[in-house]
């Protein structure tokens, strides 16, 4: 099912073209939206919400044309803004219930639903406290609840894990996954590629307002051939690497200090022999998957100036 389709979508922001003739066709699911700063990610989200008007081209979300549909479209969209959101003086539950009422729920429904989504977002008794006094983590949970309370079919999440500690981040990603399992599509805009790797089905990568990469995550991560990453513990650092090099294998060193070797087939005794001979012990040996980071860095123009 088509979730989002744009045709030659061009959006200007101030006197700068933030999106340039963007043509996209995205199916429902959990989609990662990536791109360097200034690539047009936030612009795309704001355009879909109707905050910005395209200067050319068209876009359809959930089968509704943007711009013309206005409120009718936003009825089916949920938005998690990047920046903090609170209504001074309102507790978390009141804020979410208000968001529900504005989203078209009757007062009683809104309150019940607010409790439900806040529970889901993992905000316990804290929901009776003022949002403005919350830690980042609790604010993000409140924002998630606000974006879901009117039961959208498609939520746009702008950096939902930003500012979260490792535990909070893990929980937030679990929530995103669960939302996806309930048939709600998610567009997850983030700079944290690990987040995308852990929850998304597919990825859209923008660069300078244009589409740079789009595809299923599983396909993007596939590395052709037999490339393995390997880490050893050795008495004398560097010996094993030398031994590998002497045996004619293709070696690369990753930034994390791990070696990447290209084999002809699955690893064999040979590697272990080599390790023992050079006084090393293999501690880690895994089929190498192309990381999203490498794809990202190769797909975007790294040296281009990124001014807004």
């Amino acid at each position, binding site marked *: 099912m088509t979730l989002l389709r744009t045709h030659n979508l061009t959006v200007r922001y101030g006197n700068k073209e933030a999106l340039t003739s963007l043509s996209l066709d995205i199916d429902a699911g959990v989609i990662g939206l*990536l*791109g*360097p*700063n*200034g*690539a047009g990610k936030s612009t795309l989200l704001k355009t879909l919400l109707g905050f910005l008007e395209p200067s050319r081209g068209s876009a359809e979300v959930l089968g509704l044309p943007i711009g013309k549909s206005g409120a009718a479209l936003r009825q089916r969209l949920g938005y998690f803004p*990047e920046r903090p959101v609170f209504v001074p003086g309102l507790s978390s539950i009141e804020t979410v219930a208000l968001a529900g009422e504005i989203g078209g729920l009757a007062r009683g429904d809104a309150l019940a639903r607010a409790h439900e989504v806040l529970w889901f977002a993992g905000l316990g008794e804290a929901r009776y406290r003022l949002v403005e006094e919350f*830690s*980042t*983590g609790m604010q993000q949970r409140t924002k998630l609840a606000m974006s879901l309370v009117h039961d959208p079919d498609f939520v746009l999440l702008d950096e939902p894990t*930003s*500012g*979260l*500690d*490792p*535990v*909070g*981040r893990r929980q937030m990603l679990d929530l995103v996954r669960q939302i996806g399992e309930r048939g709600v599509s998610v567009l997850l805009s983030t*700079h*944290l*590629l*690990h987040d995308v790797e852990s929850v998304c089905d597919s990825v859209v990568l923008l660069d300078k307002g244009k589409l740079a990469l789009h595809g299923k995550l599983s396909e993007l991560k596939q590395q052709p051939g037999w490339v393995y990453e390997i880490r050893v*513990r050795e008495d004398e650092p560097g010996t094993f690497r030398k031994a590998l090099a002497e045996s004619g294998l293709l070696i690369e060193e990753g*930034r*994390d200090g791990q070696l990447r070797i290209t084999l002809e087939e*699955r*690893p*064999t*005794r040979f590697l*272990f*022999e080599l*390790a*023992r001979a050079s006084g090393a*012990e*293999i*501690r*880690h*040996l*895994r*089929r190498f998957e192309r990381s999203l*980071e490498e794809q*990202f*860095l190769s797909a*975007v123009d*790294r040296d281009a*100036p*990124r*001014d*807004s």
Partner: protein
Amino acid sequence: MSVIALEAVSRWYGNVLGLSRVSLEFEPGVTALLGPNGAGKSTLLKLVTGLLRPSAGTVSVLGEAPFANPTIYARLGLVPEEEEFRARVSAVDWLEYLLRLHGFGEADAAARARKALSEVGLDSAAETRVTTFSRGMKQRLRIAQAVAHDPDILVFDEPLTGLDPVGRRDVIDSIRRWGSQGKTVLVSSHILHEVELMTREVVLMNAGKVMASGNIHEIRRLMEAHPHRILITTPDPKRLATRLIDQDGLHSISFSEERSQVELETQEPDRFYALLTELVLDDAATIHEISSPDDNLEAVFHYLVGK
């Protein structure tokens, strides 16, 4: 004498405890400060940079109390936590002004400002007003202002906030470089796999206290309550499991034919790694993959913070 030393430092905000009797010393090189929200990392960094005064205990930086101390600021650079940042001037003017407050002459300040901007990749935006910057550009500028005067001590509160993958990679590389140049670098961050790329030295905090400090792998080794997990992929998991099961020091072992995997938990990982090599070489076992999913910072963090 350590570059930075905290001695039994506590800090309260009204009734709220920020930091509780923390004693720590920091030496040249990169040290990462980790912990959940509210653990006291930011409080600690503010104490070290003299933006806060300790409620009890002493903080000393280069042998002096840092609060509002100009002598310290001449040798310190700070990237504060992200907040509103709306300087209504161009990036280069802003940096020049800050550098002139350091006492650099006009020409010197201008040259240094340009250099710092180009180090963080903002050359082409030098003349642009900061108010129009994106979040990532502002973060780059924050880093530029911290390093422009070439300080000996660098303090970064979440330096990667808002940066895109390109920027993150650049900044991580720079932090490593500054550490290896002999600067004392303190970094707080939530993104653990990125911290692992910066340094092995960490301070783990929770609820205002220090839970562990030192090398990540050392800390992991000391955590005996949590046995090491080793995952092995092999075409014949049943056979490998049978071979391993009579070994001492094994907490648990399980295998899955379906996924061709054997998973074992042990207190003595060294011994089992050695054993695996033996099995392959002397017993013709075939092993495709070996990995240890919890020998990393992420695992250490979750074990210590307890969630």
